[in-house]
C-alpha cells in the first residue's frame, strides 16, 4: 500500500470507524444506555476539521511526504488510453464537482428537524432553601414523649379490641424516636401514593400511569442520578415550587411538576420526602462539611 492510500485509510478509520461505529457503542456501554450515544454533530465536525489540518501539516512538513502523497494523484491524472482506466478517470473526476454541488444543496435545503434543547437537570437552588433541614428526620424529645403516650393509649384499646392489630409501645426515647420517624415515613408514603404516584409511579421509578402524556418524563427516583445525588432541601425546593420555579435553562415550559406549596402544607411536603426516599430505597445526599 502506498503512502496516499495509508493516509486515506487512516482518515476513514478514525472518522467513520471510530467516531461513527466505536464511539457510540462505547459510550452506550459506559453509561448503560438503551440507545446508541453518538457524538454531538458540532463536535464531530470540529474533530474532522482538526484531523484534516493535522494530516495536512504532517504531509506538508516534509518534501519527501509531499512527493509520496502527490505521486499517485499525478499518476491517476495522466492522460489514459486504455478504455477501462479512462472510464474510471472520468467517473472519479465527474463525481467530485457533483458531490460538492449536492452537499451545498443538502445543507441549505429546508428541513423538518426536531427542535432539541439542552436542559440543565440540576440548576442551583434559590438561597432561601439553602441549609433547610427536614425537621421530621430528627423529632424533638417532646414529640417523641407525646408519641409514646399515644402508643400507650392505643395499646390499651388494642388489648380490648380483637379486630385491632397489636400495638408496640417503645421502651425508651431512642426506640420511640425511631418508631416515630417510621410512622411519619409511612404517612409520607401514603401522601406520595395519593399525590405523586400518578406520574412518578408507586415504585418511584418515574413510570406512573400519567407519565406517558408528558414530553419531559417524570424523574425516576431509583436512578442514582436523581434524589440520591441531591441534598434533601433541594428536593424540598423542587416539590414546593415545581416546574414553573425552574430557571429557563431547565426548560420549565416542558415540566409537568406542580407547585405543591399551593396545595400541601410544609409538614406534608417534608413528610412526602421521607416517604419518597423510602419508596425509592435511597437516602438524600449529606451536606459536605467545611472544616
Amino acid at each position, binding site marked *: 500500500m502506498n503512502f496516499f492510500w495509508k493516509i486515506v485509510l487512516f482518515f476513514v478509520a478514525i472518522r467513520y470507524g471510530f467516531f461513527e461505529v466505536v464511539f457510540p457503542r462505547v459510550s452506550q456501554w459506559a453509561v448503560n444506555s438503551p440507545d446508541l450515544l453518538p457524538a454531538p454533530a458540532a463536535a464531530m465536525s470540529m474533530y474532522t476539521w482538526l484531523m484534516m489540518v493535522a494530516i495536512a501539516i504532517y504531509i506538508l512538513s516534509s518534501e519527501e511526504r509531499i512527493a509520496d502523497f502527490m505521486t499517485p494523484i499525478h499518476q491517476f491524472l495522466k492522460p489514459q488510453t486504455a478504455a477501462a482506466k479512462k472510464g474510471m478517470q472520468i467517473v472519479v473526476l465527474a463525481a467530485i464537482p457533483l458531490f460538492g454541488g449536492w452537499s451545498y444543496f443538502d445543507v441549505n435545503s429546508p428541513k423538518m428537524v426536531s427542535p432539541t434543547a439542552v436542559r440543565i437537570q440540576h440548576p442551583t437552588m434559590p438561597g432561601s432553601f439553602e441549609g433547610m433541614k427536614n425537621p421530621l428526620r430528627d423529632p424533638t424529645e417532646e414529640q417523641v414523649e407525646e408519641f409514646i403516650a399515644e402508643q400507650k393509649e392505643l395499646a390499651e384499646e388494642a388489648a380490648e379490641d380483637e379486630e385491632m392489630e397489636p400495638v408496640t409501645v417503645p421502651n425508651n426515647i431512642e426506640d420511640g424516636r425511631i418508631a416515630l420517624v417510621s410512622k411519619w415515613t409511612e404517612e409520607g408514603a401514603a401522601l406520595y401514593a395519593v399525590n405523586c404516584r400518578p406520574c412518578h409511579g408507586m415504585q418511584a421509578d418515574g413510570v406512573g400511569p400519567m407519565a406517558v402524556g408528558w414530553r419531559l418524563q417524570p424523574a425516576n427516583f431509583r436512578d442514582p442520578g436523581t434524589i440520591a445525588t441531591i441534598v434533601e432541601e433541594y428536593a424540598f425546593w423542587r416539590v414546593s415550587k415545581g416546574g414553573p420555579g425552574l430557571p429557563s435553562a431547565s426548560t420549565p415550559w416542558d415540566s409537568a411538576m*406542580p407547585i405543591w406549596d399551593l396545595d400541601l402544607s410544609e409538614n406534608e411536603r417534608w413528610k412526602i420526602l421521607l416517604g419518597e426516599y423510602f419508596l425509592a430505597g435511597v437516602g438524600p445526599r449529606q451536606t459536605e462539611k467545611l472544616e
Partner: protein
Amino acid sequence: MIPLHSLEKNGLQKYQLWLSLFLLLLFTCVGLLNAQTAEKLPATAENLVAGKQIYRNSCWYCHGKIGDGNGPAADFLDPRPRDFTAGMYKIRTTKTGELPTDEDLFRIISKGIPGTAMPRWELTLDDNERWQVLQYIKAFAYEFSDPEYDPYKAVVEIPPKVESSPESIAQGRKIFEKNKCFECHGLEGKGDGRDGLEDGWGFPVRVRNLTRGTNIKGGKNPEDIVYRFTTGINGTPMPSFAKNIGGEDRWHLANYIASIASTEYSEGVILKAVKIEQTAPSTIDAEIWETLPALRIPLAGQVIAKPRWQNHAIDLVQVRAVFNDEEISFLVEWDDPFQDTKHDAEQEIHEYENTYVMAVDEVPRERNVFRDSIAMQFPVKLKSGAKKPHFFRGDTSNPVNLWVWKSDLEASGNNPVEDTNANGFNKPLKSQPETGQQVTGKGVWKNGRWRVVMKRTLTTEDRNDIQFEKGKMIPMAFNAWDGSNGEHGLIMSLSAWSFVYLDVPIPTNLYGYAFLIMLIIAGLLLLFIRYSRSKSS
C-alpha cells in the same frame, strides 16, 4: 439425529463429543436449577411474614392495610383497587365466578394492568418477593384455603391456536356481529354501545375501547384476548361466551379483536402540514385528509393544579393539517364513546376538598350534564431557541392562544370554535372580542369518534393570535374534555407541546447556487489537472 460415526469422520474426536454432551447436560441442569428458584413459593409462615412486609411497603396505599381495597389512594382511582377480601378477580384463566389460579395472580402482579393504576411489579420485586406477597394477598380471602373452590379444577380449555390471517380476521368480525359484541363495545369497538353500566361493587363501568390495544387490561395479544370472552370478567357485565362461541371460532374472534387493537402514539413530535393549491377544507369528508400524514399525540389527566384529575377519558388525539397561501385547516380526531352536546353550567364544580378529584360521586360522570370539547393551543408569540410558554395554558409573561371547539355550540348551529387566550392555569380562558373570532369549525360524531375541522387564515391582524409562519416549528398542544366522564374546567386531559411545521418548497434559486458551486469545483479541478499534467510531462 446425526449418527455419531459421521461426526467422527468429520474430524471430531470421541472424547470431544462426550465432553460437549457433558457440558450440554451440565448447562441444562444449571438452567433447570435456576428456573426452579423462580417456581412458586408455598404459603409457609416465613413466606407470609415476608409477604406482609412487602405488602406494607408497596401495596396497602391502594389496597388497604386489611386488603379491602380502601387504601388512602383508593377514592381517587377508577377502576377502584381490588378488594382482596371478596375473592373476586377479573383477569383469570378459570370459569366465570371462580377464583384465579396462582399463575393468574402472579401474572397480574408481575405485568400490572394496562390503563389502570396497577404497575408492573416485576420491575422492582424479584420472583420470590412476588410469590411471597401473592401468598399474603390470598390469605385475605378464606375461599383460597377451601378445597371446594380449587381454581385448578375450573381452568377453561382453549382449543389449539389458529394463527391470524385475513380470512380468520374476517371470520372473527362475523362472530363479533353474530354474538352482538357491538351492543356494548360498539360497531367499531370504541366502547360506545352502552352507558350507565355498574360493576358488582356498585361502581360505574366504562366499556373498554377495543381499538386502544395498550389499554386492554388482560393483554392485547390473541393469546390473552381469547381468555377474556371465554372466562368472562367477574364482577362486570362482561359475560363468558364459552357456551356460545366454540372451537376455532374463539381464535377467529380473538384474532379480529387483536387486529383492531392497533392505535398507538406516533414516535415523533412534529406534524407536517402539507401545502395545497386548492381551498383549505372546511369539513371532515374532504378526500384530501386521507392522504395527509397524521400525528397521534398522548394526553394525560390534568394532574398539575387543583382540581387534579387522573381518570381522564381521552388519552390520544390524532391531528392532520393542510394549508394554502391564505388559510390552514386542522382535522382533529379522538375516541369518545358518547356524544354529549349539552352543558349545564350550574353543575360545574368549583370547590374541591382534596388535591385530586375523587373518582365517584364528586363530579357527575354521566350523560347530558357536560359538553364534549377540544382545544388546540399555540403560543401567541414564537420565541427564539427552545423558549416556549408553559404547556399548561402558558404563563404570565408568555400567553397562549387556544381554539376551543364546543359540541354544544356545534349542536346549536353557531360557530362552534371560540378564539381565546390564557396566560396561566390559575385564570379562566379569556374569549377574544367578536371581531377577533376568526377560527371556524365543524365537528361530526360517529360510532364513538369525534372528527373536528378547525380553520383560520395563516395570519391575522390580531396581536393575541398565533401567526403561522412557513418553515418554522410552531408549538402546538391540546386540552380535551369528555362530558359524560364529568370533565369540565380544569378537570380534563391535556398534552405537552408537539409541533406543527408548515412545509416550505425548496427555493428555486438554491438549484442555481448548487449548480454554480459545481461549476466552480469543476473549474478548479481542471486547473489542477492541467498543472499536474504539465508537471509530469
